[in-house]
C-alpha cells in the first residue's frame, strides 16, 4: 500500500455560501460570507470574489464586522478559533483560540473587547446542548492568542445563529429555542423567559425560528414555524409582556431583520418573497417576489442602503433598499441529490451537473464561479412540494463538446413514464447549447445509461442509450429529409438486444471501435461500424454494476465492477479475465487524459479511494476513509496547467484533478502539499488598492496600468520632469472651485510647486559631483527610504549593477521618496 503522503482531501470550490448570514461592510462595497473553510469577500457591485480569507481548518460558522473597527472582521469556525481579518487587504491579523467548536458569533459596540459565541456545553463537547458564552478578548500583540476568560450568559440556546440577537444599545440579548424566548438584560444580570403553547387551535406551530431586535426601541421580532411574526414588547416584565402578531408567510419564517433605523422589518421564508413591513404600520407591506428559491438569511448593510438575502440554492441576492435586485452571487447549486453524473464540458472545462430544477449548471471549478444555467426542460417550475415535475436525469457530452445529450423524465412512480431525449448542438456564435432534436419516448422504460462515441477522428457522432425495456439504441446525426433549411437532426440508427436481458451500462472504447454493453451478468462487445456482436464476457457470473474501458496504453482492457464486490479486468485481445480482486467498488471511473483509473470503495461506513493502472497490479495511490458514506458521483477534470510533481504518489494528480460529491453533497477534491502552499502564498501576496475591487478584469487592466505608471516613472527619471503629484497640485485639483483663492495667488503657488524639482535636480547634480563618498550618502538615503515601500526586485537588481547604474538608482530613490511623500 502506498501512503497518502501529503495529499489531502479538501473543499475546493462549490462550497456553500448560504450557510450563514452574509455581512455587508460599512461602506456597502463588500460582502463577506462564510464559504466552506474560508471567508469570501465579494464586491457588491460587480459580484466578483475579491479575495478568500483562508486560515480556518474547519467550516467557518460565522462572520461579523468588528464593532470598534469597521475595516476588520471576525470569523468563527468549528475548529475552535475566532480569527480577526483585515478584509480589505485580505490579511489575517489575529487568531483567538477558544478551544471549543464555535457555532455562531455575536458582538455589540457596547460591549468593548467582548464577543459572544455559541459553543456546545463546556463540559461535554459532543452534547447537543449549546450555550452562549461571553469571551473576553485578551489585549495582546501576539498573532495567536488564547482566550481563557469565558463566562456563560445563557445556558440553553439554539445552534441556529438566527435565533439570537442583540437588542437596543447592547442592553439585552434575546435567544429563542423551541417554544421559549429568553431575554437577558446585562445591566440587571437577569433573564426573562417567555413561553408559547406548542400549537394553537388552528394547527399553527408556534416554534420559534428566528429572532431580530429593533435597534432603537425595545421590540423583539420573532419568526415562527407557522409563518407568523410576533413583535414582543414590554418584555422586562414577567407577566405584563405583550406581543402583536403579523401573518403573511404561509410557512416558516426563516429570517428576520430590522433595518438600522428601525423603520422597516424584513422577513423571508420558503415563499422566496422578501417582505418589507413598515414598523408600527404593519398593514403596509412591500414585497419583492420571485427571488428564485427559499430565503435562508437576510442581512442589511449598516447604512441601510443594501439588503442581501441568501437562498437555499446557494445564492446571495443583493437588493437595493428601493426593493430592486442589483446583483446576484451564485454558488454551485446543490439539491438533495444529483441525478445526472458529474461531467466536464470539454469546451469550457466546467463542471456540469443538475442545478436548479429542470436545468443544468455549468460551473467553473478553476474560478469557483457559476458560468451559466442551461434550461433543459423549458417548462415553468412550480414551487410546490409533492408535485412531480420534469427532471433532468442524464446528460452526456461528446468528446469535442459540440454535442450534448440530455434525458428528462417525469412521474417515476406511476406506470406512465414520460421520457424525453434531447440533443443539443453547441452554437459557436452564441457560445451556448442550442436544442437540435427532441425525441419523445426514446425508450419504453427508464434510460439506464447513455454515452457518446469518443473517437475524435470519426466522421459521424454516435450516441448509445440503454434502457430498462431491454434494448439499447444507437442514435446518429443524419441530414434532414424534407427541407433544406432544417439542419441535420438525430434519429435512431440501430436497436440492439441480447436475450431479452436488461442492459445496464454501456461504454465506448477510447478509439470508438468497440462498444461494450452490460446485460446484467453478461458483457457484450459490439462493433459500432457493423453492429456485429463480437464477443460476450461473462466470466464471473454476477450482475455488472459499472463498466469502463482503459485509456491510452491500457485501451485493451475493459474493467467492470459487479454487485458482489468484485473488480474485474478483461483483456479484450484474449477475451479473457486478466485479473480480478474483491472490493466493493461503488464508483469506477477513468481519467480521460492518462491511463489512470479511480475506484471508490465503500467499506464499513466510509469510502476508500484507489487509483491504479489496469496494467499494473499495484495501485498508484490509495487513500483510506476519504469521507463517510458512499461516493456515487465523481469526475476527473483536466487541469489548466500541469503540475510537475515527481513524487510517485501524487503524479496521478499532475494532469487532472479528481472531484467527488459526498453523501452530504459536498464537493471535495484532492490536493497536494505543493499546490496548497502555492495557493496560500498567492493569497498572501494579494495587495488590493482600496478603491477598486480586485476582479480578474481589474487584474488584467491593472497590470497594464501599473506598467504604464512604471514606464512613466522611469521616463521621468531620465527627463527630469515634474514629480507625478505634489501636495500642492493635488490640493489644487481636489479642492472645490468655489472655496479656492484667486487664480493669481494660486499661480505662484503652482509655479513654486514646480520649482521643487529644480532643487531636486540640483541636489542630484551635487550627488554627481560627490561621487567619491557615495557610501555615506547611501546610508542617508537608506534612512530616508524607510517609510516608503521597498521594492524587492529593485533591491535584488542593485547588487549586480555598475556604478553609473548605481547613481541612477540613487536618483530613483530620491525621486521615489518625494513622490511618495506627495501621497503622504
Amino acid at each position, binding site marked *: 500500500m502506498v501512503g497518502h503522503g501529503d495529499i489531502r482531501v479538501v473543499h475546493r470550490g462549490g462550497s456553500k455560501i448560504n450557510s450563514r448570514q452574509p455581512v455587508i461592510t460599512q461602506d456597502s462595497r463588500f460582502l463577506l460570507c462564510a464559504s466552506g473553510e474560508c471567508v469570501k469577500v465579494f464586491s457588491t457591485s460587480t459580484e466578483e470574489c475579491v479575495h478568500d480569507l483562508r486560515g480556518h481548518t474547519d467550516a467557518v460558522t460565522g462572520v461579523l464586522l468588528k464593532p470598534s473597527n469597521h475595516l476588520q472582521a471576525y470569523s468563527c469556525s468549528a475548529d475552535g478559533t475566532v480569527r480577526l481579518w483585515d478584509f480589505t487587504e485580505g490579511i489575517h491579523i489575529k487568531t483567538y483560540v477558544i478551544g471549543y467548536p464555535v457555532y455562531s458569533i455575536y458582538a455589540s459596540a457596547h460591549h468593548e473587547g467582548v464577543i459572544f459565541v455559541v459553543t456546545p456545553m463546556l463540559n461535554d463537547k459532543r452534547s447537543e446542548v449549546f450555550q452562549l458564552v461571553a469571551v473576553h478578548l485578551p489585549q495582546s500583540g501576539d498573532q495567536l492568542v488564547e482566550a481563557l476568560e469565558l463566562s456563560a450568559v445563557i445556558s440553553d440556546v439554539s445552534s441556529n445563529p438566527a435565533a439570537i440577537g442583540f437588542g437596543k444599545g447592547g442592553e439585552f440579548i434575546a435567544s429563542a429555542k423551541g417554544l421559549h424566548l429568553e431575554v437577558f438584560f446585562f445591566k440587571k444580570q437577569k433573564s426573562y423567559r417567555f413561553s408559547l403553547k406548542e400549537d394553537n387551535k388552528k394547527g399553527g406551530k408556534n416554534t420559534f425560528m428566528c429572532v431580530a431586535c429593533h435597534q432603537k426601541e*425595545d421590540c423583539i421580532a420573532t419568526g415562527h414555524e407557522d409563518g407568523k411574526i410576533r413583535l414582543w414588547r414590554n418584555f422586562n416584565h414577567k*407577566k405584563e409582556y405583550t406581543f*402583536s402578531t403579523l401573518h403573511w408567510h404561509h410557512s416558516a419564517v426563516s429570517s428576520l431583520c430590522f433595518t438600522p433605523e428601525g423603520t422597516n422589518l424584513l422577513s423571508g421564508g420558503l415563499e422566496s418573497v422578501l417582505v418589507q413591513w413598515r414598523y408600527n404600520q404593519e398593514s403596509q407591506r412591500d414585497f419583492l417576489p420571485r427571488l428564485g428559491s427559499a430565503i435562508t438569511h437576510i442581512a442589511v448593510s449598516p447604512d441601510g442602503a443594501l439588503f442581501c438575502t441568501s437562498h437555499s440554492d446557494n445564492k446571495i441576492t443583493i437588493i437595493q433598499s428601493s426593493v430592486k435586485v442589483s446583483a446576484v452571487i451564485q454558488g454551485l447549486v446543490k439539491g438533495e441529490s444529483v441525478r445526472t453524473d458529474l461531467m466536464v464540458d470539454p469546451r469550457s472545462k466546467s463542471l456540469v451537473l443538475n442545478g436548479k430544477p429542470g436545468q443544468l449548471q455549468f460551473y467553473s471549478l478553476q474560478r469557483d464561479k457559476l458560468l451559466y444555467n442551461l434550461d433543459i426542460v423549458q417548462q415553468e417550475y412550480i414551487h410546490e412540494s409533492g408535485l412531480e415535475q420534469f427532471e433532468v436525469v442524464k446528460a452526456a457530452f461528446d468528446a469535442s463538446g459540440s454535442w450534448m445529450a440530455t434525458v428528462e423524465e417525469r412521474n417515476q412512480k406511476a406506470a406512465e413514464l414520460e421520457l424525453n431525449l434531447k440533443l443539443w448542438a453547441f452554437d459557436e456564435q452564441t457560445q451556448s447549447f442550442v436544442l437540435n432534436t427532441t425525441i419523445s419516448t426514446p425508450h419504453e422504460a427508464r434510460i439506464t445509461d447513455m454515452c457518446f462515441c469518443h473517437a475524435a477522428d470519426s466522421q459521424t457522432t454516435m450516441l448509445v442509450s440503454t434502457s430498462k425495456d431491454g434494448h439499447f439504441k444507437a442514435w446518429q446525426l443524419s441530414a434532414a429529409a424534407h427541407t433544406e433549411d432544417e439542419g441535420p437532426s438525430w434519429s435512431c440508427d440501430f436497436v440492439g438486444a441480447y436475450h431479452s436481458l436488461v442492459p445496464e451500462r454501456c461504454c465506448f472504447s477510447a478509439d470508438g471501435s468497440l462498444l461494450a454493453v452490460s446485460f446484467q451478468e453478461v458483457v457484450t462487445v459490439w462493433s459500432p461500424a457493423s453492429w456485429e456482436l463480437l464477443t460476450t464476457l461473462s466470466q464471473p457470473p454476477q450482475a455488472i454494476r459499472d463498466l469502463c474501458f482503459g485509456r491510452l496504453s491500457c485501451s485493451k482492457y475493459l474493467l467492470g465492477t459487479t454487485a458482489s464486490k468484485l473488480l474485474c479486468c478483461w483483456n479484450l485481445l484474449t477475451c479473457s479475465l486478466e485479473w480480478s480482486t474483491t472490493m466493493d467498488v461503488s464508483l469506477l471511473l477513468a481519467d480521460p487524459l492518462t491511463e489512470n483509473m479511480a475506484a471508490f470503495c465503500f467499506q464499513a461506513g466510509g469510502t476508500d479511494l484507489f487509483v491504479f493502472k489496469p496494467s499494473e497490479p499495484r495501485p498508484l495511490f490509495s487513500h483510506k476513509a476519504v469521507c463517510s458514506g458512499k461516493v456515487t458521483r465523481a469526475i476527473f477534470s483536466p487541469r489548466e496547467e500541469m503540475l510537475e510533481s515527481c513524487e510517485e504518489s501524487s503524479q496521478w494528480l499532475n494532469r487532472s484533478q479528481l472531484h467527488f460529491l459526498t453523501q452530504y453533497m459536498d464537493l471535495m477534491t484532492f490536493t497536494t502539499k505543493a499546490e496548497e502552499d502555492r495557493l496560500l502564498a498567492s493569497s498572501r501576496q494579494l495587495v488590493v488598492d482600496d478603491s477598486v475591487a480586485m476582479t480578474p478584469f481589474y487584474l488584467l487592466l491593472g497590470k497594464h496600468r501599473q506598467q504604464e505608471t512604471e514606464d512613466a516613472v522611469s521616463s521621468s527619471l531620465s527627463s527630469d520632469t515634474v514629480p507625478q503629484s505634489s501636495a500642492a497640485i493635488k490640493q489644487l485639483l481636489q479642492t472645490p472651485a468655489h472655496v479656492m483663492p484667486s487664480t493669481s495667488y494660486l499661480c505662484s503657488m503652482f509655479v513654486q510647486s514646480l520649482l521643487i524639482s529644480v532643487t531636486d535636480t540640483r541636489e542630484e547634480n551635487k550627488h554627481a559631483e560627490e561621487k567619491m563618498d557615495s557610501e555615506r550618502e547611501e546610508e542617508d538615503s537608506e534612512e530616508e527610504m524607510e517609510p516608503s515601500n521597498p521594492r524587492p526586485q529593485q533591491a535584488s537588481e542593485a547588487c549586480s549593477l555598475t556604478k553609473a547604474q548605481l547613481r541612477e538608482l540613487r536618483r530613483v530613490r530620491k525621486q521615489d521618496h518625494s513622490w511618495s511623500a506627495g501621497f503622504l
Partner: protein
Amino acid sequence: MAEFKVHRVRFFDYMPTAIRAMAFNPRTERLAVARADGALEIFNFADNYFQEKVIPGQDGRAAEALCWLGQRLFSAGLNGEITEYDLENLRPRYTVEAYGGPIWSISSNSQGSLLAVGCEDGTVKIFEILEERIQFQRNLDRQKGRIISLCWHPSGTLIAAGMMDMIKIFDAESGRATHRLLVERGVGASKSREVVVWSIAFLSDHTIISGDSAGKVQVWDGLTGTLVRTHLVTKWDVLALSSSQDESSVVAGTSEGTVVQFQFLSSNVGQQDKEWVRTRTFKNHSHDVRGLAHTDTAVVSGGMDTQLVVRPLLDKVEKNTQESALRKIAFPHRSLVCCAKKAGLLLFQFPDHLELWRLGESNGHGSPGDSLPVKRKPEKLIQLKRKGEDHISCSALSPCGGWLAYSTVSSFRLYRLQNNTISVTKVSRLPKDLRSAQQLCFSSDSTKLFASSCRSSVLVVDLNQSDCKYLHTLRPKSGSSQPIHLLCVSEDGKWLATANTDCLIHVFNLDKLKLHCTVPVYSSCPTAIAIHPTNSNLVVVHADQQIFEYSLVQKEYTEWSRKLQKQGLHPLWMERDTPITHIAFNPKNPAHIILHDTFMFCIIDQNLPLPEAKTPLYNQMTLRSLPESERIMHSHAFKICKNFQHLLCVRLLEDHSLVVVERPLLDILSQLPAPVRQKKFAT
C-alpha cells in the same frame, strides 16, 4: 347509571338575537347587554358570569347604547327615547323622549351628574340626573351631521363626539365646539363615501381614540386637535372601542369579528415616552363585534353572532386557572322550556309566541345506544301569539297539561287547555293582584299556580276546573327587593322554595301558607333548586358549581352535603363554564339526582363514594370496558353523559323516559346572516 328511553328533541328553533350594545359597571362588576330585540341582560362577573337578570324586550324598542350610572342603567335607542330600567322589577322604569330624532349614543360624565346623548339631528343633549328621573338641561351647539358616538373626558369638562367625517370636541360648560378633527376617508372606491366615526374614547391625558368605518383606529391629541397615529386595523368597519380602567389598554371590535388590542407602552424600557402600539388580535366572532367591554382582567365582546365572549387577558390573570379560560355564553342561564310530566307535552317560550308540542311515541325496544323507530311523530299542537307590545318574560305549563300561563311585564294570561280536542280557552276572570309575574310555577297536582312578583313575594292562586281564585301572598321576612328567579314546588305539594338574585333561598310551608325557613346564605347565586319528593331535601346548585343539600325537616345541611363540602368537588366539575340549569330526581331510585348544563347531563348517585381529585371524572366509557366485578371499585357518585350537546332542557317524564332538548350551535350559526366577505388564504 340507569337506562332511560330518551326523547331527543331538536325541534325547538330557539334563536338568540344579536348583541347590540354593552356596558360594564366596574364597581358592581355587572355587565349589561342589550340585544337587538330590546331585551336586556345583566351578568354578574363577580359570580362566574351568571346571567342574573333578564328584562324582556318590547317591539320597537331596541337599545343602541347603554350606560351605567352607579346602580342605575340607562339605554337610548333609535326610537329617540331614553329609558331607565327598574332592575328590581325587571321592567323599564320610565322613558324620556329626547326630541332629537334617533339617538345613537349615550354617555355619562364620571361624576354621575349629567347624561349626554347624541342625536340624529346633530345635537348633543345634556340631561341632568335627578333622584327619580332625568331632566333635560340644554343642547350643545348643533352640528350638521348626526352624532354617532360620544365620550366625556374624565374631568367632565369636555365631550368628544364622533360624527360623519369628523370628530368634534365640545366644551361641556359653554356648549361650544372647541376642536374639529377631520377623519380621513377610506381609499379607493370608498373615497366618495362618508366615513362614520362609530366609536370614540376620551382618555384623561386628553388623548382621543376613534374607530371609524374606514377600518382605522386613530389616536389624536385632544389638546391640539392633531392626529398622532393611525392604525389600519381592518378593511371594514371598526364598530366598538373600549378602554381599560387604568387607560393603559384599548380594544377595538371590527366587522370581521376580530377584537384588536392596543396598549400604551413605552418604546424603550425604563423610559417615560409611551405610545399606543397595536398588540394582540382576538378572533372569537364570525360576525360584527358591536358590543365591547374592557374589564380589568378580560375583554368581553358580543355582536351579530349572538354569543357573549369573555376573553381573559393572560397577563392579568393567573395562568391555568378557571379565570384564564375563554368563555362563550351562547344560551340563557334559565330554562325556556317547560315540560308537562304527565301529559308528555313541551312548551317552548319565544319572545313573541309560545309553542306547545306533543312528544313522539315509540314502542320499540332496543339495546342502549340504539335509536328506536318512531311510532307517532311529535306534533305541534298550539302556537300562541302574545298580545301587546311587550315580549314574554316567563311561561309555565301545568304537569297535567291542562293549564298554560304566561306573563309579560304588563300583563298576565292564563289558559285552559283541552288536550284531546286541542282547544284553548282564556281564563277571563283573574285575581286583581296577578298583573304580571317574573316566575311562574304549577304545583304537581295542577291545582295551584305560583307567581312571583315584586319584592320577592309569591302569589298563590287556586285553580278549579275552569276558574281561578286568589289564595294568599307569601312574603319573606327579610324584605329583599331583588326579584325571584327560581321557583320550585315539592312533589307532595307541601313545600315551595324560592331563590332570588340576592342569593336568598326561602322555603314556604304551603299547608300553613307561611315561611318555613331560610336556607343559610351562600355567596354565589343559586342556578337551580329542587326538593326531593320523598325525603324533602332541598338540593341547590350555585353559579360557582357548588352543590348543597339541605334538609327541610331538620333545617340543616344533610350528612351527604357536609361530606361533599368537606371533600370538595372534583376540579373538572368546577372547571365547567356553564351553570346547572335544572335539577330532577329519579323516582325509581331516590338516591339519584339528575342535573344538566349546556354540555352534559349528570346523575349523582348519593350512595356511591365521591370522586377523588385524582380520579377521572368522566369515566363512563372506561367503566363500560371493565368487567362487572371491577366496576364497583372504580365507579363514583358522578355519572356524566356527554352524548347530548348544547342542551336547553333535560326532564324526566312520568313514564321514566328522558326528554332532552338540544339546540346545536351550528344550527344557530347557519341561520345568521352572511358575514362580511374576507379573503381566506388559499381560496
